[in-house]
């Protein structure tokens, strides 16, 4: 880790306009939770776990936020041509990737965790939480790391990382995982849901992830380590674009 790089990346990612937009983005699940409570329904636990957290936050908000920060942390430097300034310094490439990853992870986790905690507390106001709050809070923080590492690797690999990442999240994880059960072993969304299950203590009717707890933790760890390794390797051999 390198303090200078961390500060630089934080300034890149948290420009004023972007931060305001992201905070608005984080407000959406909270607003939905308020509307849900106002309407008053009979199964708040099932709604909070399966609809609010699993589908809305982990299915959409977490990957989108990770896509924004994970591809921007390094990818925008390639696009703008500023990458040369950090790469032409005697810093191990591992340190560059890890520093950029740390900031994009904290930014993603910060926005999504705040939304998860506030929205879940509202959705389960006066109801037993049975680990739903802590479980999903833990899951989004862990999931943010896996997603950011994956998208950062994509951003070193291709200049269209954003589009490739979108195809991954919404075609692979969203559609194909539903059609072919085996694909769940290659879906960060399923890892994230599995990690939530390590703490969440509710009947399967309320929340039932498709991966076991240990499988999810192991696969998430392997994916993070592998994508970080691949990103570092790729960055070591990064070549400047011809006409760029």
């Amino acid at each position, binding site marked *: 880790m390198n303090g200078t790089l961390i500060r630089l990346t934080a300034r890149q990612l948290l420009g004023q306009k972007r931060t305001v937009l992201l905070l608005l983005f984080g407000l959406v699940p909270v607003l939905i939770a308020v509307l849900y409570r106002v309407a008053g329904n009979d199964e708040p636990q099932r709604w909070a776990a399966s609809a609010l957290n699993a589908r809305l936050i982990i299915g959409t908000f977490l990957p989108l936020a990770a896509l924004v920060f994970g591809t921007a942390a390094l990818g925008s430097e390639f696009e703008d*041509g500023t990458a*040369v300034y950090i790469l*032409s*310094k*005697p810093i191990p490439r591992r340190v560059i990737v890890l520093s950029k990853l740390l900031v994009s992870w904290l930014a993603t986790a910060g926005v999504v965790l705040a939304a998860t905690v506030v929205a879940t507390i509202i959705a389960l106001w006066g109801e037993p939480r049975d680990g739903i709050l802590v479980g999903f809070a833990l899951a989004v923080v862990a999931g943010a790391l896996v997603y950011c590492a994956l998208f950062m690797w994509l951003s070193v690999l291709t200049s269209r990382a954003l589009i490739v990442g979108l195809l991954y999240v919404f075609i692979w994880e969203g559609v194909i995982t539903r059609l072919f059960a085996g694909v769940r072993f290659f879906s960060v969304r399923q890892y994230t849901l599995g990690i939530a299950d390590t703490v969440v203590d509710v009947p399967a009717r309320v929340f039932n992830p498709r991966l076991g707890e240990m499988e999810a933790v192991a696969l998430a760890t392997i994916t993070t380590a592998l994508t970080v390794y691949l990103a570092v390797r790729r960055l070591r*051999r990064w070549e400047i674009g011809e006409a760029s």
Partner: protein
Amino acid sequence: MSAPAPPIAVINVSRWYGNIVAVNDISFALGPGITGLLGPNGAGKSTMLHMLSGFLQPSAGELRVFGESAWENPGMYRRIGLVPEREAVYPFLTGYEFVLLAAQLQRLPNPEEAARQAIAMVELEDAAGRATGGYSKGMKQRVKIAAALVHDPEILLLDEPFNGADPRQRLQMMAMLREMAARGRTILFSSHILEEVERLAEEVLVIVAGRLAASGDFREIRKLMTDRPHTFNVRSSDNRALAAALVADPSVYGVELQDGLLQVRTGEFAAFTLAIPGVARQAGVSIYELRPTDESLESVFSYLVKR
């Protein structure tokens, strides 16, 4: 112990993209001083600089910076500074912060002081507190140079450094580079503008279509071009008499009289310059002016490019 490795050694280096050859079997070695990398657009200058700075892998051959490979070797950036061609900067950083960033990433013991000194070297003190996003082209160019030399590198690589600089800034930058060269630094800059190279470079490397067409002092290169006659313009007390006398000299190919001016073509630069004073004295002619017409880099360059 063998002799210390030269700052830059390029041995039979080629680089191709698919089936397009950008750099074709180039070899040279560089020591302290200013070298100009000259060539038309698309000749492979940037490819060469990118390989030297470790941002392109040579497809063949060896490329050594202080005896070490430039590829996959971030440690070498302690000793080299790179000024890329693109004007990109971090628009939200001020000029001072941008140079400070470079100093901190170089892990200098006193980055603030180093950044201030580098900014002073490029005379950017007045604008150092402003965001670089609002800089003009010339200011961006100078802040990039300041960032590249903040750690006082032994090698400075500059890709088209005078783009966008106004004439006064250009002179100032040239003076600064000369001063660095005088302190024993190795400086390599690329340019497609002859006038810049001619004024600044002690040595030139001419790259044409990916191949090294010539290297060395361009006046020396000119002398090697024996298949093309040298032309001298002579003004004297009696051009016609001098012409008649010169035609008799074996080193002279031809003479031409224009009003008030005698043009002499010769195949041997040295022999001719040695012979002419004697010939003139014998003919009883005094020479007022003797000037080679095409010793400018431009004529050398157009010769090499067209060959």
